[in-house]
């Protein structure tokens, strides 16, 4: 059962990737198991669906040590309906976990920005968990530059 759930999550992540990136979704993920595990730990039994959350990341990161990213989730942010958390995963980093934001209705809007490390060109995945347990996801492929001088 557990395995089935993970497979489902992986499939849905790939679907979300396919939605935003078209053909590039077919590329092989270096650590899909780790990413799926991290995703399952965050999302529980829910199946993430594309939409509602928007991840903004550069198409090209000038240096992988400092990559600015932002997330924004459509939500009224009231006591009855708000975003609980958003996690960011980088599937080809040594560890996929990057950061998890926890919001409250006092946040007003579910928006946050930070700067992250990317070991190489890869997909960055944002996953939002709402207070009703539903889960949404968005993915961006970020190309990490290669310097000119070989040294």
């Amino acid at each position, binding site marked *: 059962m557990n395995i089935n759930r993970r497979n489902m999550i992986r499939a849905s992540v790939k679907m979300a990737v396919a939605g935003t990136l078209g053909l590039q979704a077919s590329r092989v993920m270096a650590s899909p198991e780790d990413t799926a595990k991290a995703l399952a730990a965050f999302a529980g039994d829910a199946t993430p669906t594309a939409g509602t959350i928007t991840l903004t990341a*550069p198409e090209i990161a000038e240096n992988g*040590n*400092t990559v600015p990213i932002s997330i924004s989730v459509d939500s009224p942010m009231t006591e009855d309906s708000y975003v609980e958390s958003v996690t960011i995963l980088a599937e080809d980093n040594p560890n996929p976990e990057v950061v998890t934001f926890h919001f409250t209705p006092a946040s007003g809007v579910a928006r946050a920005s930070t700067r992250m490390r990317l070991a190489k060109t890869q997909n960055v995945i944002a996953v939002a968990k709402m207070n009703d347990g539903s889960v949404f996801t968005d993915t961006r492929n970020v190309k990490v530059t290669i310097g000119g001088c070989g040294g």
Partner: protein
Amino acid sequence: MHRVFEKTNVALTSLLLVAIVGTANAGGPVDEKLIIDGELEMITRTAAPEGHPLDEVISGWHYRTPETRALEADSFQNPGMLGVELGEEYWNKVEGTEGKSCASCHNDAASSMVGVGASYPKWHAPTSRPINVELQINQCRVNNMGAEEYAFDKSGQKPLTAYIKHQSYGKPVKLDLEEGDMKAWWEKGKELYYKRTGQLNLSCASCHEKNNGKYIRADHLSQGNVNGFPTYRLKQAGLISTHNRFRGCIRDTRAEFPKAFSDELMALELYVTWRGTGLSVETPGVRQ
């Protein structure tokens, strides 16, 4: 890339080629203005001074990605400002046998240091050579504070230099080449700028004069101006000094590199700073 996709009439083959090559298509500096916090407009492009090999002097800011440019345009988000604020603490720190800080003599840097960052290297008669802000700080520490010199890139050297230069934020770079032997040092610096070094046999000019605006792999070559130094480099996630950057570049040609503050690098700093004449001091700039 976006531009490419808009031109639907482009032949399929060239479209594919550009897609393969990635970023390495749109050469040249971006046509945008650097306005810090929407208030302070920086001079990032200006007519070159007489005797300059290029027509226009352009800040390295124009060669960076939109995200990196945005980091510098917001003085809060600019991580180099952490270094500048640390520099202010060093400005006020009492050190040495005389019981003084920089502030003891120079008071408020916001008024006493205006223009300093835009006019160094300067001729220093007592040592008969040009000195930069780092060496001026050391002169003060030894002669007026009774403190030890800062070692290269150590302790307060980078933050304090950044803090002092930041007091000229937006002021155009202008050196006085009339004093002392400045012209001879300028000539020496020019010679070094064109000197090809190392196993790769490259000079500063090979990349930054002949090929600025082009990509070397994913790296967009700038004119190599130093008006943003010490600058925050995303790569090292910290402030990087001018001489550190010079040494890094020379090392990459697979050459032995001169010592920081050596005659060679002081001459080079003088010459390269002059090449950026008219550009606003951007310290702390943000670069890749």
